């Protein structure tokens, strides 16, 4: 049963990644091909998810939106995890004043709601893909910093680390072989969980009009564009909302399953 949940969630995520990756081959139409004579048509064999207010194929847009969403979410989480965990480990190793300064900086970042940090970054940098990635990674980094720091500190007090030090292992060797591995094991489920947070953040930016510029679709700006049509063409908003809901639920399940396994492994 446990394996079923794990397997199913991995399968769904892989399928989504594949769709996003092969968007150019799968999408029946271009995501920006406007056809004013064919606006707001309901789902049909020609357009499986109907057409939008500019007569564009919603299915094609949805696949490309998934691609943009992953292009934004995955690097943001990777950057946040690397940055946060590395600085966290450094703080744990350095202790003292360095630890104090770094911790206060991330405490302040942690205290401000991530959403506001992200908006500030976006307003300063403009809403490009890079801008959004930086905004999301900055807002996720404090979480990784805290985790990274506590994991590293705990690892450094382990007897085997003391033993390694005693036989003259270099700090770099310890950092990679003990701290690094431990971080990788514990942070992977967190990163998967944060991936869903990143997707939700991107969607929120889209809804308030701060995501990628049109005509490029993202799940968020599709919702923002289609929510006006909830009475007129309900199928429009349903498609991206469903994708977001399924993706986030799946990622959370996956993170949950992964962390259970890590816990078992640690015991």
């Amino acid at each position, binding site marked *: 049963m446990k394996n079923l949940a794990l397997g199913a969630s991995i399968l769904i995520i892989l399928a989504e990644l594949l769709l996003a990756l092969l968007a150019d081959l799968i999408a029946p139409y271009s995501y*920006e091909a*406007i056809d*004013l*004579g064919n*606006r*707001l048509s309901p789902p049909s064999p020609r357009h499986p998810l109907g057409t939008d*207010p*500019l*007569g564009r194929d919603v299915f094609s847009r949805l696949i490309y939106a998934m691609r943009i969403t992953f292009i934004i979410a995955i690097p943001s989480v990777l950057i946040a995890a690397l940055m946060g965990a590395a600085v966290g480990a450094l703080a744990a190793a350095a202790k003292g004043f360095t630890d104090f300064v770094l911790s206060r900086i991330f405490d302040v970042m942690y205290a401000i709601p991530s959403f506001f940090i992200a908006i500030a970054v976006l307003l300063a940098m403009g*809403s490009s893909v890079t801008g959004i990635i930086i905004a999301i990674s900055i807002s996720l980094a404090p979480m990784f910093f805290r985790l990274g720091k506590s994991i590293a500190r705990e690892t450094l007090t382990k007897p085997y680390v003391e033993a390694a030090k005693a036989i003259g292992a270099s700090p770099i060797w310890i950092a990679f072989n003990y701290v690094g591995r431990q971080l990788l094991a514990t942070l992977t489920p967190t990163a998967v969980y944060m991936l869903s947070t990143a997707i939700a953040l991107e969607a929120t930016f889209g809804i308030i*009009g701060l995501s990628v*510029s*049109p*005509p490029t679709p993202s799940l968020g700006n599709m919702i*923002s*564009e289609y*929510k*006006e*049509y*909830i*009475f*007129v*063409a309900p199928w429009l908003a349903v498609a991206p909302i469903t994708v977001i809901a399924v993706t986030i639920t799946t990622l959370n399940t996956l993170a949950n399953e992964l962390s259970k396994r890590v816990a078992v492994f640690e015991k």
Partner: protein
Amino acid sequence: MFFFALGCGEKVPRTGAYVAVGIVIAFLLGLGAGFLFGRGGVTTVTVPTTVTHTVERTVTFTPPILQQYTSPQPTAPTTATQAQLLQNITLKVAMSTDIRALDIHFAMGVADFEVLGKVYEALFKIAWDGSKLAYVPGLVKSYSQLNETAWLFILRNNVVFHNGKKLTAEDVKYSLLRSIRLSGIGKQLLTDAAGNPIITDIVIANETAFILKLSAPFTPLFENLAHLSTAIMPKEIALKYWDGPITSIEDVIGTGPFRLVSYEKGAKVVLQRFDGYWGNRPNVKTLEYLIMPDASARMSAVISGVVDVAVGISPDMVEALRSQGIEVYRAPGVRLVLVAINCKRVLDVRIRQALNYAVNKEDVVKEFMRGYAEIATSVASPTFPNVVSLKPYTYNVTKARQLLEEAGFVGKKLTLLTSTRSPKDIQLAQVIQQYLKNVGIEVEIVQMEHTAFLKRVFTDHDFDLAIYGPSPSSLYYALTYWRTGASLNGPEYSNPEYDKLLDEIATEPSEVKRVELYRKAQEILWRDAPAIWLYFEDILIAARPGIKGLQVLPFQMLIVDNVYV
């Protein structure tokens, strides 16, 4: 009730419980059926397609330059029978934006004029007969021209402010001075190209008579005095807020049919009928404006009956609303949707004309706007007097490409700025992008928050193309947008010949000659194409079927004077 019946099963005979459950189920079924049939019944209602344009008082409009004018005697004040028939309706209106000012002299947006336009009145007012707009006396009873640069005005003598004070010439003097001093639009309307005031002096003759002395003859005087940005408030209020906007609700005092009673920022504005109003009192006793930025929310509010009227209905919603039995009113609008072309960056007029040829306006209006718009054939709405119909830039890709080639504008990139306030603008931007791509111009769309957008376009002039839609109050005012250095001249269009024509129009006493000058000015602007001229958006208003007599002005302003239920 259901659980109660089951829980009592032990004590009362079992059949009793079944009967109770049966009753509940039958009741629920009945509700469901009633709901279904009720809706079914409503969908068959046929709905009028156009606004009923009833003109309450026939006021003959006399051209401004006539030497003398006396307005017809106002219809006898509310007779006894009418007072008996007066209804006390509470009308709730869903609005798309919040008001940004409590002060009519600081009003900028459609919402500001919608609300404050019920509270304040100007010396003249804009009348609408369903096809043309006209400028008719409002607070003024009669006027006469003393000489080329002096006009005598007599005020109506039964006008009272909401605080009970009688309207006097003093109030007019200080209101106009304040408008010119503080109001952005007032300044625009009542100063000349060099920035000098058009009205040099306001001489008070007696309590209800005053003379406006002008620096030079100014033919658009009455139409500009009809703009609500020159509305009249009590002298004490004007002096109290001489340097800044009115901040207290108690000081929002006008002469209009409604007075402001409460304002909750971002939520609602409540107006109450003013029983001392000089004209016919409306049947609407309480007028509530609820602020609902989301179009779907406005739509569901009017369907469910939370509000009686909803403004800002998009063309795509019309059918769905009608199928729910909601009436959709339609009026031609004065808002000209355009894509401004920065004339400092796109210098060659051939490129600007090519951009006009590149867009298929017919298709945009027919499909994108579902026919709820009119293709622009001039630079201002045909509902204004003196607007002519010019030779359209008919969709022609070959011609556009040829012009671009001649101008050496090939393989170029342009940025198109839009405001995130209107989803329709963002969609339109993508349509424009596609059309320009067809003639070989790459367009990058940049979305901006509305305030930042306005600054970028009208202050910094930092854009190539920008989508917006000015809503002028008269042809002359519309033309002044494009004057060299004008504050609303975002694209920095500048043509000395055009500027000179505007001055000539202002001073030309002969109406025949003036009409010709107006034509010339429109032709020059149209030809010089500082914008892609697109279309005039229709005003669409949804109202519950019980609301009768609602009227809509082309400025997206509701007229509730004749509303009844």
